[in-house]
């Protein structure tokens, strides 16, 4: 099925699969219940001389239509939990780390630079853009300078609120090169709708080339964020 936009991370397929499973189950429930509603409305319209059926209910039906939804929902809960644990339960080991500092109304994206350390003079800092190598996991450390923001990359199916006072780690492994958009997904002020970023997934060689270009530097890195 292709009702959702293209997913280009290692877990986007799992999320989409969960979506489609839920769609299948709720879709069947939707068709059956709405069909019953409209059919009963027509079939049991008042007609001269026909009296309504006098019944207060049916205990067996109550049991059936309690247990069947409960079983289906527990199944959906357990299946979802598996996917959630795959995504949130661990961060894959990687030395690729990026710090994203959200603020009104900017995404500051910081790389370690050649020395492999954050908060040093050779940090690479860019704004409203991110570059990643394809087929490699990256850890993103989300922070906020002022209010709540939310780092949303629809193509990765990645969304995580950036909370002042916390550093929240997420990970992603892109599966396809290309240009994708970043959006803010938590109301953060009048510029909320303009916090757009561009995320470029590159072949590893191109990514290394980009890093070198940044390190050679058009401008020195900004002072590390407070």
């Amino acid at each position, binding site marked *: 099925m292709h009702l*959702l*936009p293209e997913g280009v991370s290692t877990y986007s397929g799992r999320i989409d699969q969960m*979506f489609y499973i*839920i769609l299948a*189950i*709720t879709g069947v*429930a*939707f068709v059956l*219940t709405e069909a*019953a*509603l409209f059919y*009963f*409305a027509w079939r*049991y319209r*008042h007609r001269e001389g*026909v*009296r*309504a*059926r*006098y*019944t207060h*209910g*049916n205990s067996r*039906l*109550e049991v059936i*239509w*309690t247990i069947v*939804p*409960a079983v289906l*929902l527990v199944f*959906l*809960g357990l299946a*979802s*939990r598996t996917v*959630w644990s795959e*995504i949130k339960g661990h961060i894959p080991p990687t030395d690729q780390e990026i710090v994203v500092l959200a603020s009104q109304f900017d995404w500051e994206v910081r790389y370690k630079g050649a020395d492999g350390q954050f908060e040093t003079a050779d940090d690479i800092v860019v704004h409203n853009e991110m570059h990643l190598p394809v087929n490699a996991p990256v850890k993103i450390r989300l922070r906020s300078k*002022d*209010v*709540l923001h*939310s780092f*949303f990359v*629809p193509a990765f199916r990645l*969304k995580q*609120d950036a*909370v*002042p*006072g*916390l550093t929240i780690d997420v990970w992603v492994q892109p599966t396809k090169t290309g240009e994708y*958009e970043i*959006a*803010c*997904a*938590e*109301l*953060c*002020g*009048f510029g*909320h*709708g*303009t916090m757009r970023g561009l995320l470029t997934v590159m072949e590893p060689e191109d990514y290394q080339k980009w890093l070198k270009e940044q390190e050679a530097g058009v401008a020195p890195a900004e002072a590390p964020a407070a």
Partner: protein
Amino acid sequence: MSAQHDAHHSPSFVGKYIFSQDHKIIGIQFLFVSLAFMILGGFLAMLVRWQLGFPDREIPLANVLPTAWNPADPAQYNQIFTMHASIMIFLVIIPILTGAFGNFLVPLMIGARDMAFPKLNMLSFWVGLVGGSVIASSFFVEGGTAATGWTAYPPLSADPQYTGVALGQTLWIVGVLLVGTASIMGAVNYITTIVNMRAPGMYFFRMPLSVWALFITAILQLMATPVLASALGMLLFDRTLGTHFFNPAGGGQVLLWQHLFWFYSHPAVYIMILPAMGFVSDILSTFSRKPIFGYKAMVFSIMGIAGLGFIVWGHHMFQSGMNPSLGTAFMISTMVIAVPSAIKTFNWLGTLWGGAIRFTPAMLHAMAFVSTFIIGGLSGIFMASTPVDMFIHDTYFIVAHLHYVLFGGSLFGVFAAINFWYPKMFGRMLNPTINTIHAVLTFIFFNLTFFPMHILGMGGHMRRIYDPTLYEFLKPLQPMNEFISINAFILGGVQILFAANFIFSLFWGKKAERNPWHANSLEWSAASPPPHGNWGEKVPTVYRGPFEYSPPGMTEDYLPQDRPAVGAPTPGRTVMTPARP
């Protein structure tokens, strides 16, 4: 209070209609004020939809609109949708369901002459009205209204530097505190009245589902609203007294607000749907001429929804940064709460099955409720799944869901209730042709407006953004935004039919009989409208439940609760028993 009371106590016009202690008048006061706020809230939605459908076109009549209502200005856009939602939730849906219908119906349906605390009741209306006025006054202050969503998350809402709005947000907080206080006062009254003042023979399991729903809703209001009050108090102090409840720089926690807010606001959404479910159950039974299917299951489902409603709040916070294990816990409870709602839906279908259905406007809205509630409830299952929620949180998928349950659910329930009880409230009939057209057109254009929002959400369309065309990935969805907006304008226009019918019929509607729908519950034994004290000399005695429609062995197809049985006894506890001492 008997007829003698009325003989020596004849209130002035002001005592009878303005500062009334009569539950029926207070209910009507809540109804009129809430309907007025609905017009305002609906208009604000039209502004939002103009901007989203046509972001590059200036809104028509721009020079007539207040300068603060320009949805093309990003800051004002945030204010407009904040006030749209805040008004609809706090000043329309909650007051109509609990303040208007709760007040009007509870004493009548249980056979009481009034509420347990008439003065407290009057106070709850006036406190609520002051609260609504405080919220509305924020349109007129420097900096304008709150701009942080009806959810008011700090730090955005805790410090004016982040929005440029100072007094407006503070007024919002104070106004909501007052409206919440009115809710709590009302809840105390309803619980006390239902527990203590039922007429002889009105056992708990003979009460209409409207009363059960209002009773359990009142318990929700009593227990949840104080938590909102505490959160609002903390936010107010952060803003005005220099505290740091939500400010990490001062040792506070940003997420604390979300936990406290949603601890109330999740039960609040059940406050907003349960009464509507109760009304729909009673209306479906009446116009199918059949008992409600599974009465006890329906009662226990209401209790289940209310109880579980206290342990699901974290599903609003799956992506908030709280511990993912908490996410799993809240996901399980959220999946479970779908079960009692499913049970209710099947029982509504069971009520229609085998019926002799009369398609009055009330019945059409009640059936529309079931249809849209099915969609709203099923769409909730997607967001209950924590991994799927990673994608659809804060997108239009959520906006679709909430409007299906709050508009398709609560508001259609309100339309059904108004159509059903208008004759009892005002002694006049609404024009059924106009309201049939209103019901059908509203259902059609509601679906055309809100169903496509699921598709926007599936495309990743974020909430609360003023110009989707700034994003490449959203450009292909823009024609759908236009489509939605056009249907929204038509939907808004159709409501004029209802408003005109409502007002016109107050003065020129056909006079209503005592029981125009041939219904069984006690309010239909009182006059239309009932006098002060509701019944004459004697309060009714109840002999059976309210769902005895089409019992065998009778020519008529209804048997009111207070009519002594003629001939064969009816099953269960409905055999004629003497009134309890």
